């Protein structure tokens, strides 16, 4: 379950950013997880609960924005359904992924008082 490694990377970045902003606590961490990112939002939440610790992130919520997979034709840009063969219905050109592979740390809400 690589979600533990992923959440460790999130927590390390949050710590760096919090230090840079002289924050003494974190209220929220916002991430985006694409349907084809290879990360399961539920498992990421579980991993966060186990890894957040008693420090900076003890009271921080993890906001996960799920991004569905969107495919389109490489040539004519017609939308291609994510189920079925990944080729354009009208011209048979292979599809390209427009969104859905994101794995991003979007925002951190910090307490700076």
């Amino acid at each position: 379950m690589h979600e533990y490694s992923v959440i460790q990377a999130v927590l390390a970045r949050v710590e760096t950013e919090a230090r840079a902003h002289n924050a003494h606590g974190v209220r929220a961490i916002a991430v985006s997880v694409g349907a084809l990112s290879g990360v399961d939002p539920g498992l990421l939440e579980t991993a966060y609960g186990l890894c957040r610790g008693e420090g900076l992130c003890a009271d921080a919520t993890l906001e996960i924005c799920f991004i569905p997979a969107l495919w389109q034709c490489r040539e004519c840009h017609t939308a291609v359904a994510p189920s079925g063969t990944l080729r354009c219905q009208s011209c048979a050109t292979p599809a390209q992924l427009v969104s859905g592979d994101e794995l991003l740390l979007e925002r951190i809400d910090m307490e700076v008082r």
Partner: protein
Amino acid sequence: MCGTCGCGDPHIIAVPVRDKILAENDRTAQHNRAHFTEQGVHVVNMMGSPGSGKTALLESTARALGQRRRLGALAGDLATDYDARRLETAGVTARSISTGSICHLDAAMVHDALHAWPWHDLDHLFIENVGNLVCPAVYDLGQAHSVVVLSVTEGPEKPLKYPVVFRTADVVVLTKIDLLPHLRGLTIEQFEDSIGEVMPAPIIMPVSTTQGDGLELWVRWLDRQLMHSYAALLDASTSQTL
């Protein structure tokens, strides 16, 4: 202002980051890639289930290419150096990466494994990832190409169940095709259909490592990629000279 509820508390600031969560791994992977490109080593990340035939494919590759190419492998497993020893016996310069309880290789593990190991003189370096169709897909290692090894005994529905690893792959090597007559009603077309639902422009190579069927296509593909690596190296050195 607080980005969670918009409460206006001046002591809460919303800091936008908008960066990849695995940015650190990606930086190390780019560092690895730069090393490989500078040395003209063609690197393949080999992924697949445990028992799909990754090591057997590399043994066959060594039999087919060993006389004219220098082959190396980093074999990732939770425990034992069994695969690395098998590959050494087959004539491949091999080293194992024991991950302990970690279900995938990451770029730093690959970078560490390159130290004090003669990878510079290789033509092809195969990174045999931990047997797993899920986690390895998430981590860039610095490879030029990703290959999924899928055996016919796993069934044609596997690409649909594990789409991420297939989507990120350049090639699918379909192994153990000599067993197809023993698998009721299964055909290569069924695998091609399901792979086509998760890869837009799939390259599929059906092989049997025990019979030798299809290996020529795989070897030719490797040869072609090596030529591309040399061309990239030549381009880089020419532009430096100019």
